[in-house]
C-alpha cells in the first residue's frame, strides 16, 4: 500500500468552556487522542452521534481549528503547527465540503465568482483559463453552463451542494474533508450527490474523509471507518469488518439501532436499546466514557480509561479487548468475539 496521504496521530482538540467555581478553566474535550491514516484514493468514514467531535476533527485536520496536541502529517509533512502563510500550499490540495449548502456559499457572489475565487486566491491561471476551468467544473458536477451567472439562492439544496463540490475541485485537490455533505438534502438527492462524489473519486483518485451520521451511506461510500463517541475513537477498521462484526459495545449498539429499510430484516433484527444519558464532554471523568450506558460494563471501566487495543487489524478502545482480558476469556469457556451470556459474570478485576 502506498504511503498514506494523511496521517493523524494522537490528535486532541480542547475548547475552553468557562471557569469552574474553583477558578480552574473547564475544558471541553471535543477530540481526544485520535489516530488514523488515509491512503491515496481511499475514503475514510467517520460516524458518531451529534456532539461526538467528528466535525471538530475534520475542521482541525484542515486547520480551521488549531490542534491542542498531537500531530497531523499531510503527505509526510507535519502541518500541525504551521502558520497561515505556509499553510496555503497545503490548503490548495486539501479542501472541505460543508454540511449546509445554504450557509457555505456567499449569497452575493455569482456561481462563476464562487468557483473562480479559489483560483484567484492561489494566483493560478490567467483570466481566460479560469473561465474555461469554471465551465469544465460546472460540467463535472452536472450543472449547466448558463448557471454561471446565477446566484446561490436560485438553486435547490442539491444543486447548491453541487456548486460547493465544484468549488472544492477548483484547485485539483488530492484530499477532501466532506463534513456531512448530504444530511441537509432529500433522500432522492442524497444518492445523486453520493454518486457524484464516487465518480469524481474514480476519475481523479481523490481521498475523502467522509463525516456523516447516516450509517447506511457511510457503509456504502467508505473503505475504512472510525466510530467516535465523546471525542474518542471507539473503533477503527475496515468498513466491512466493522459493520459485519462490530467489536466495541458502542458500535454494536449504534449499528443495531439503525432502522433498516427492509421490513423483513427489520423484524428479525435484534436491537440493543441503550439506557442512560450521554456524559458531558466538559471535563469528562477519567474512565470509559461509555461506561454509564454500556450493557457490558465492568468495575474497571468505571475506574480507568480503556487503552486502545489492536485486535485483528482493528483498533478498539475498550477494556473487553485488552490483552490480559482477552487471555482471561480465552482461558475460560467464552469464545472470543461472540457474546457470552453475561460478560460481567466471572471476570476478576
Amino acid at each position, binding site marked *: 500500500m502506498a504511503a498514506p496521504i494523511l496521517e493523524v496521530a494522537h490528535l486532541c482538540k480542547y475548547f475552553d468552556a468557562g471557569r469552574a467555581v474553583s477558578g480552574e478553566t473547564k475544558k471541553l474535550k471535543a477530540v481526544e487522542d485520535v489516530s488514523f491514516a488515509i491512503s491515496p484514493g481511499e475514503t475514510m468514514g467517520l460516524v458518531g452521534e451529534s456532539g461526538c467531535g467528528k466535525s471538530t476533527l475534520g475542521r482541525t485536520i484542515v486547520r480551521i481549528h488549531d490542534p491542542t496536541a498531537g500531530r497531523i502529517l499531510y503527505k509526510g509533512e507535519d502541518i500541525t503547527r504551521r502558520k497561515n502563510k505556509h499553510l496555503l500550499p497545503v490548503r490548495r490540495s486539501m479542501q472541505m465540503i460543508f454540511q449546509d449548502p445554504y450557509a457555505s456559499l456567499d449569497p452575493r457572489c455569482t456561481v462563476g465568482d464562487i468557483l473562480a475565487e479559489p483560483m484567484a486566491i492561489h494566483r493560478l491561471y490567467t483570466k481566460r483559463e479560469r473561465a474555461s476551468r469554471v465551465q469544465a467544473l460546472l460540467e463535472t458536477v452536472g450543472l449547466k453552463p448558463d448557471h454561471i451567472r446565477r446566484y446561490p439562492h436560485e438553486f435547490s439544496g442539491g444543486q447548491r451542494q453541487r456548486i460547493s463540490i465544484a468549488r472544492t475541485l477548483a484547485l485539483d485537490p488530492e484530499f477532501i474533508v466532506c463534513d456531512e455533505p448530504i444530511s441537509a438534502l432529500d433522500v432522492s438527492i442524497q444518492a445523486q450527490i453520493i454518486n457524484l462524489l464516487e465518480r469524481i473519486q474514480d476519475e481523479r483518485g481523490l481521498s475523502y474523509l467522509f463525516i456523516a451520521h447516516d450509517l*447506511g451511506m457511510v457503509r456504502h461510500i467508505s473503505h475504512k471507518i472510525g466510530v467516535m463517541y465523546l471525542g474518542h475513537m471507539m473503533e477503527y477498521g475496515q468498513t466491512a469488518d466493522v459493520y459485519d462484526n462490530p467489536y466495541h459495545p458502542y458500535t454494536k449498539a449504534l449499528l443495531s439501532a439503525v432502522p*433498516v429499510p427492509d421490513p423483513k430484516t427489520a423484524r428479525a433484527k435484534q436491537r440493543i436499546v441503550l439506557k442512560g444519558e450521554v456524559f458531558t464532554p466538559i471535563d469528562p471523568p477519567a474512565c470509559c466514557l461509555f461506561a454509564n450506558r454500556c450493557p457490558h460494563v465492568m468495575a474497571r471501566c468505571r475506574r480507568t480509561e480503556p487503552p486502545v487495543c489492536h485486535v485483528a487489524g482493528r483498533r478498539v478502545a475498550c477494556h473487553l479487548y485488552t490483552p490480559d482480558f482477552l487471555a482471561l476469556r480465552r482461558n475460560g469457556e467464552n469464545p472470543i468475539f461472540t457474546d457470552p451470556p453475561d460478560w460481567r459474570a466471572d471476570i476478576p478485576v
Partner: protein
Amino acid sequence: MKLLEVRHMTVAFKTQQGVVQAVRGIDFSVERGEILGIVGESGSGKSVAMLSLMGLLADNGRLLSGEIAFDGEDISPPSRVGGQTGLSLRARVCGALAHRRARRVHRERMRTLRGREAAMIFQDPMTYLNPVLRIGTQMTEGLRLHKKCSRREAYETALSLLRQVGITSPEQRMRQYPFELSGGMRQRIIVAIALSCGPKLLIADEPTTALDVTVQAQLLDLIRTMTRESRTSVVMITHDLGIVATMCDRIAIMYAGEIVEEGRTDEIFYAPMHPYTVGLLGSIANTERSVRQALAPIPGTPPDLLHLTGGCAFAPRCAEAMNICLSYRPEPTDRSRTQRCRCWKYCKSAAQEIIIRQQKGFSTS
C-alpha cells in the same frame, strides 16, 4: 372500523409568488391500532396534510376541500356557501351568519379534540416545549384542561407518565425547565404529554429527525410499546424509509402533494408500483447490504408547487414517462385490496381511452 378517514383533501397556501398547492386531493384512512407511515421529501405536503387535519394551518393556508371523518364523526370544516346568485340580500346575510356560527362551532370542537382525542408530536422538541414554563406545568396542563383533573391527580398522573417513558427521578424533572434536559429527554417528555390524555390518534411529525440513532431507537420503541398497549392509532410522518420499515403497518408515499402510492409495508418494499417509490428505494444505502451496489438515484429535482402543469407531477423525472403522463393526471389504480398507486403505467386501458377520445376531438375533462 376506521378511526380516521380523509377524502379529497386539498390544501393551498396564498403567497406573494402565487398560490402553492401543497396538498392536491389526497385520500387515506387509519384503522384502529394501526401505524400508518407517510413518506415523502420535504415539500411533498405530508406535514401540511396533518396540520390541516388538526386545524392548525397557518393563516395563509386554506383547506379548500376535503371530508374528514374521525371516529365516525364528521370533523371537516364547514364549507363556504359561495356566491350563489339569485338569492335575496336577507338570505345571503343569513347564510353568511350561519357560516360564521358553523365555523365557531367547528373551532370549539377542534379545541376539545386536539390533545384529548388526537395528539401530535412535532419534529423539534425545543420549539414545542415552552422555554419559560417548568416541565410539570406543561405536563399537567392538558390533564387539567381535558380530563378536569385536580392539581394533585394531574401531578400524580404526570409522574407515572414520566416513569413510563423512562425518565429517572421524575419529581426532580417536574421542577426543571426544558433547557436543562437533553434532546432525547425532551422528546420523551413530549411523547408523555401527547399520550397523557389517552388519545385515539397520535400524529408524529418526524419525531426523531433531530435525534441521534441510539436515542431514536429508544424513542421509536417507546412510541410503539405505549401505543400498542392502548391500541392508539399512529400516523408517522417521516422521510426515513428505515423507520417506516421498522415501525409501520401501512405506508403512503407522497410526492408533490399527492399520495402516489399506498400499501402494506411489505407491498411497498417488495413490490413497489410507482416509479417514484422504486426510485426512492434505489436511492437509499443499507447498513445490512454487504455488496457495494451502485445507488440508483432519481434524476432531477422535485417540482415547484407554484407552477404545476396538468400532467403527472413526477413525469419530468420519470424514466418511464409516456406522452399521456405529461398532459393528464393519473387516477389511483388498485392492485390489491390494500395497494394502489397513481400511475398511467397501471391503467393502460384508461390511457388509451383518453387518447382515442382526444383523437376523435371530444373534449376531455
